């Protein structure tokens, strides 16, 4: 069964969400991955959206963070401050799923500006919920398409803390959550080295070469000694993802949202 790099990215990300986990879901790729997990191996994952739905079980992917579908299928809908205060800051979120515009070798994220803050070359949308998801979720999964424009040696702006300057930099600041535990791209999966916290390729998607990964990374990227090949999607994973995207396209009259 053939599949696209976007599909393996979403499926590989979905696999990282444990069943029963409380997951803080961003719109776009994270929402696709979290819902795929819920529809396959993690039926008891509790999906929380920052607009207020807790336990959302959307039948079609939301196009916005506050689609009515999320409210209609949730266990409950609370005001946004409760999501951030009682759930995220409250330490009740197991997994935060984030996207990003730029990422560095320590999985710090920039969604604010390209260029100087006061004279930006590109003004990006900004932080959203990311800085506090990055701080307070017990662990963070990052899902992002890989390219040298996105995987940069130095961020113009750190919006959300990954492992900062590496090593125990994050622990020294007493940030509550563990931070990024994996970066899942359309080429590979990276994890922070247990000691230096530098992102290291641990799994390569089928058909991708290390050279392609190097070319798509703005720094000399490390590979684990025992780098694996990402298991191919199962028929269930692929069918479920495609059916979800098909239902979504029909419902919205458009392809699924891309952030």
């Amino acid at each position: 069964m053939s599949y696209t790099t976007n599909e393996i990215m979403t499926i590989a990300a979905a696999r990282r969400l444990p069943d029963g986990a409380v997951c803080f879901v961003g719109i776009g790729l994270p929402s696709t991955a979290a819902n795929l997990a819920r529809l396959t191996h993690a039926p008891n994952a509790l999906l929380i959206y920052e607009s207020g739905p807790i336990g959302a079980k959307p039948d079609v992917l939301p196009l916005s963070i506050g689609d009515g579908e999320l409210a209609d299928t949730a266990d409950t809908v609370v005001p946004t401050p409760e999501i951030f205060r009682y759930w995220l800051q409250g330490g009740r979120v197991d997994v935060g799923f984030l996207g990003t515009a730029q990422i560095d070798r320590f999985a710090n994220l920039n969604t604010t500006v390209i260029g100087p803050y006061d004279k930006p070359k590109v003004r990006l949308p900004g932080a959203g919920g990311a800085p506090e998801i990055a701080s307070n979720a017990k662990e963070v999964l990052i899902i992002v398409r890989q390219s040298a424009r996105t995987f940069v040696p130095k961020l113009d702006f750190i919006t959300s803390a990954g492992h900062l300057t590496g090593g125990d930099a994050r622990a020294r600041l007493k940030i509550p959550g563990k931070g990024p535990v994996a970066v899942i791209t359309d080429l590979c999966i990276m994890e922070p080295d247990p000691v230096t916290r530098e992102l290291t390729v641990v799994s390569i998607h089928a058909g991708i070469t290390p050279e392609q990964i190097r070319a798509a990374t703005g720094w000399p990227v490390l590979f684990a000694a025992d780098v694996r090949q990402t298991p191919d999607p199962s028929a269930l994973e692929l069918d479920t993802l495609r059916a979800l995207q098909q239902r979504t396209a029909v419902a919205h009259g458009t392809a699924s949202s891309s952030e």
Partner: protein
Amino acid sequence: MTEITSLREAVAHLVKDGDCVALEGFTHLIPSAAGHEIIRQARKDLYLVRMTPDLIYDQLIGSGCASRLRFSWGGNPGVGSLHRLRDAVERQWPQPLALEEHGHADMANAYVAGAANLPFSVLRGYQGSDLPTYNHNIRFMRCPFTDEELAVSPAIRPDVTVIHAQKADRRGNVLLWGILGVQKEAAMAAKRVIVTVEEIVDKLDAPPNACILPSAVVTAVCHEPGGAFPSYAHGYYVRDNRFYIAWDDIARDRDVFTAWVQRHIRDTADFQEFRQVLAQSKGAQA
């Protein structure tokens, strides 16, 4: 006590040049009709506050109503950039826009603090982020009991908060349901509150512990059915995703945008006429 009045009158009497104004609604119940009316009445120098300045603030900023923005995520959800916001920030068109940039958690907290009449809010966050470097209103303090370091931020206390809701009764009690965002907190934090509603009814018939803004909190209620378009009102109409996509092309170019605002907002009497004109432009395109 609440006045039940037209949106034109409410904006005329309650929104002043230079005011700090929050139009809230988290994807759901965005008060678009009120945003248009503020443009129609050509308010200037507004200090806009909103977690997610989307189309409604792109329109206000591009129309020259705002000089300052406190926010946490400025994009067209599911589509991409807010071109008018970017043009103001990147090239100061039609005028410079001072940014006060926070995270969502902080903004939500700051509304809660404002509603509670506290001057500041406290949160766990921003450690390692560059945001406090560029926003000097994000500071850090130590807990008086545990000595932990925590971030603090000024409370949001708008002069006017504007929201859209499903129903009001004739005394001015307002009921909303579905995705609530920060609307209740934004309203309770404000000096004056304008609520546009889908319906005005004799009796709210609200379930127990529903989200109700009592009339004592609401300055004006305006009957604006459809007033959240292109956002949605749960139980009334769905989100017009196509308009969000279409907005990308309208807002990308200064001239196209300006002509659009002239024809659809400035040259229309109200939001009902805007909807008619919009239907005509769509018809013409089809």
